[in-house]
């Protein structure tokens, strides 16, 4: 191997999912990654600098891939980067192919494919998890492997740092990593059949003792994947996830609620009365506060989802439900995506990248917004608290809780039903191969878990700080301007009402009133619906401003105002139970979320599918709300 060379270099990591590629990346770079996206595709690009090196060595953590013959957008990126077809990404100076020692025979296929497809790239092989190989009695002659492949082979234990120094030293002269250790470069087979024949031959030459099955994983799987006990465990885990979102989050949500109310009070006291004070307290603080309050639920849900994923249970859950999802044209992986959407459809839709079949991926993305995301919660909570009587129905459940559960089920059932419908109509086609690995159970690294949860929470807060912040400002402006000409001597309450009715928001609400009147909605709800196109939760802040309840975090105040609102001509209550139910159903179906639409545009590569989704969901919302209103008006 040559001396350390001058200047900087880029080394790409290639490997199948679950091979310890990211652990190696973190160990070499000290977990300091620059995270971005590849241009044109939403595949995450992770780059970091190798620590303690004599020169600048940039490490590029390519997405996990089973083969260089790509099937998913993630896999395509790998081959594009290696062959220099990725815009703005120069061909790497060297490649480390990462393979798992416990599945080395299969890993050899990817190594041989890389050697065959890129004869000019300096390449080395890193074999991870050799501690597990040894613990299970396996022995492999790695020197012999290096001789057979003609490239350097580094056996390591990533999380304990064993063997990392050798890898780091080799990277100092990455450009001269040898391809011909014993003279001639090895001729690697390109076609899969010839390649596997070569794998068989090399594997027979280097394997010294075969490894025993992973007994711990086998024992756990006998229960968790049992046809009966597996289903029971699955149901228990799901109930636990839901229960914890609602019960554990409550104290933290109350605390956030209180601190935003305090902040509004503090700003209100500090500033003189006037437009600026109203803007800050009613517009900005109340608007952003109504979103940030859901941070605890997001954090809990993502902690549980990432934990289940890292520990290895998510793949088992997908195994258990795969057959049932298959009836609806979906697959086990779609289930994981839809589960993530209970927090927020944005990360959920991004997780759909792991679905290799493009039609399954599209169907999953198009139905994901039906899953009850946390932005619907404030709307549900407000309307249910205001209009559904809090009577008990037995089994420790109240009627209010039952309605809430019903809304969640309605969303999930609609999602799965629509998927079946879409797969049978607009995205027909022969299904492509479904395959999934069940990784061995491992205790997750708490540091990695924390950083994943932090990334999700940060994305959520950014949304609150941008979209919701701006929308709150616009809504506030629309509801406060233009002002009406109010004759002097008018009582303050009437004056507020006149100003509101003259505002731009009221004009918009009245303009769309004919379209929403059949659903039982008046112009005030109309303003809320228009505003909530930006983000669902904004309707709460909007109604609060319309009903002049200074702090809409004070649900009781807004609830009382809604209950007390009567039609000036008929004297009937504007918000009856049928209206509330109709509005709830509208929110179950409608795609009112700019972030979701934006991420759909990115993931489906255009505006066509998002526009289609927006259209059919709005239609479904309108029809669903109409039926709900008519039926419940007759029945209740």
């Amino acid at each position, binding site marked *: 191997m040559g001396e350390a060379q001058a200047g900087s270099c880029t080394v790409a990591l290639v490997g199948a999912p679950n091979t310890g590629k990211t652990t190696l990346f973190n160990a070499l770079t000290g977990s300091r990654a620059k995270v971005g996206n590849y241009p044109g595709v939403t595949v995450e690009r992770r780059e970091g600098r190798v620590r303690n090196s004599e020169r600048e060595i940039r490490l590029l953590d390519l997405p996990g891939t*089973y*083969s260089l*013959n790509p*099937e998913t957008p993630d896999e395509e990126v790998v081959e594009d980067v290696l062959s220099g077809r990725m815009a703005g990404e120069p061909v790497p100076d060297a490649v480390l192919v990462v393979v798992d020692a*416990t*599945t*080395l*025979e*299969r890993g050899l*296929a990817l190594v041989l494919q890389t050697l065959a497809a890129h004869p000019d790239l300096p390449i080395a092989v890193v074999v991870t998890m050799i501690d597990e190989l040894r613990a299970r009695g396996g022995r492999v002659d790695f020197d012999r492997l290096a001789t057979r492949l003609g490239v350097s082979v580094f056996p390591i234990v990533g999380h304990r740092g064993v063997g990392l120094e050798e890898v780091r030293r080799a990277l100092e002269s990455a450009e001269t990593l040898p391809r011909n250790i014993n003279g001639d470069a090895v001729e690697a087979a390109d076609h*899969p*059949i010839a390649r*596997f*024949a070569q*794998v*068989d031959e090399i594997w027979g030459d280097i394997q010294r003792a075969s*490894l025993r099955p992973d007994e711990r994983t086998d024992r756990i*799987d006998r229960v968790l*994947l049992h*046809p009966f006990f*597996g*289903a029971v465990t699955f149901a228990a885990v799901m109930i636990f996830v839901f229960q914890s979102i609602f019960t554990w989050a409550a104290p933290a949500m109350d605390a956030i609620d209180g601190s935003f109310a305090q902040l509004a009070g503090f700003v209100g006291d500090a500033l003189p009365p006037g437009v600026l004070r109203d803007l800050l307290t009613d517009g900005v603080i109340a608007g952003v506060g109504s979103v940030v309050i859901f941070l605890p639920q997001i954090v809990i849900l993502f902690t549980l989802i990432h934990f289940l994923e890292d520990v290895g249970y998510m793949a088992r859950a997908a*195994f*258990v439900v*795969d*057959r*049932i999802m*298959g009836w609806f044209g979906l697959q*086990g992986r779609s289930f994981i995506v839809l589960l993530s959407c209970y927090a927020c459809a944005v990360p959920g839709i991004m997780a759909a990248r792991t679905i*290799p079949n493009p039609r399954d991926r599209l169907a999953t993305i198009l139905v994901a917004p039906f899953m009850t995301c946390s932005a619907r919660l404030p709307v549900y909570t407000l309307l249910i608290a205001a209009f559904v009587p809090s009577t008990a129905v037995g089994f420790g459940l109240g009627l209010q809780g039952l309605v809430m559960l019903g809304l969640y089920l309605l969303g999930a059932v609609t999602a799965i039903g629509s998927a079946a419908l879409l797969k049978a109509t607009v995205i027909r086609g022969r*299904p*492509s*191969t*479904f*395959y*999934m*690995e*069940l990784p061995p159970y491992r205790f997750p690294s708490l540091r990695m878990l924390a950083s994943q949860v932090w990334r999700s929470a940060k994305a959520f807060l950014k949304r609150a700080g941008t979209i919701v912040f701006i929308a709150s400002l616009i809504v506030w402006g629309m509801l406060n301007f233009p002002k009406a000409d109010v004759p002097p001597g008018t009582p303050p309450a009437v004056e507020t009402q006149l100003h509101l009715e003259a505002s731009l928001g009221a004009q918009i609400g009245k303009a769309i009133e004919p379209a929403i009147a059949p659903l039982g909605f008046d112009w005030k709800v109309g303003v809320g619906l228009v505003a909530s196109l930006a983000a669902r939760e904004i309707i709460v802040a909007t109604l609060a401003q319309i009903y002049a309840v200074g702090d809409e975090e004070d649900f009781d105040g807004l609830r009382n105002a809604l209950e007390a609102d009567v039609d000036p001509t008929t004297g009937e209550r504007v918000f009856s139970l049928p209206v509330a139910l109709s509005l709830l159903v509208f929110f179950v179906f409608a795609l009112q979320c700019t972030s979701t639409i934006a991420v759909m545009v990115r993931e489906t590569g255009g505006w066509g599918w998002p526009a289609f989704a927006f259209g059919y969901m709005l239609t479904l919302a309108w029809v669903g709300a109409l039926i709900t209103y008519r039926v419940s008006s007759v029945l209740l």
Partner: protein
Amino acid sequence: MNQATTKSLPLTALAVGETGVLEDDTAKAVSDRLCELGFVAGTHVKIVRRGLLGDPVEVELRGYRICLRQDDLSGLRVAPPERNSS
């Protein structure tokens, strides 16, 4: 080869715990991706477990395990299982 074809049976007909050897014309019967995953003629494939109502199927081949659906495996035929293998 003719003898193998007459005696062969579908991979999905194997019981849990049984191993079969993929027969010679495997390449014609499988998708490119199955081929990339190592389903080529002569490979030993063991049925590890089946899910609720038979799907998915976890199989073991080439020292690793992977879950697939019966539909995707339906074209694969194997020589009779090694019932008394270790």
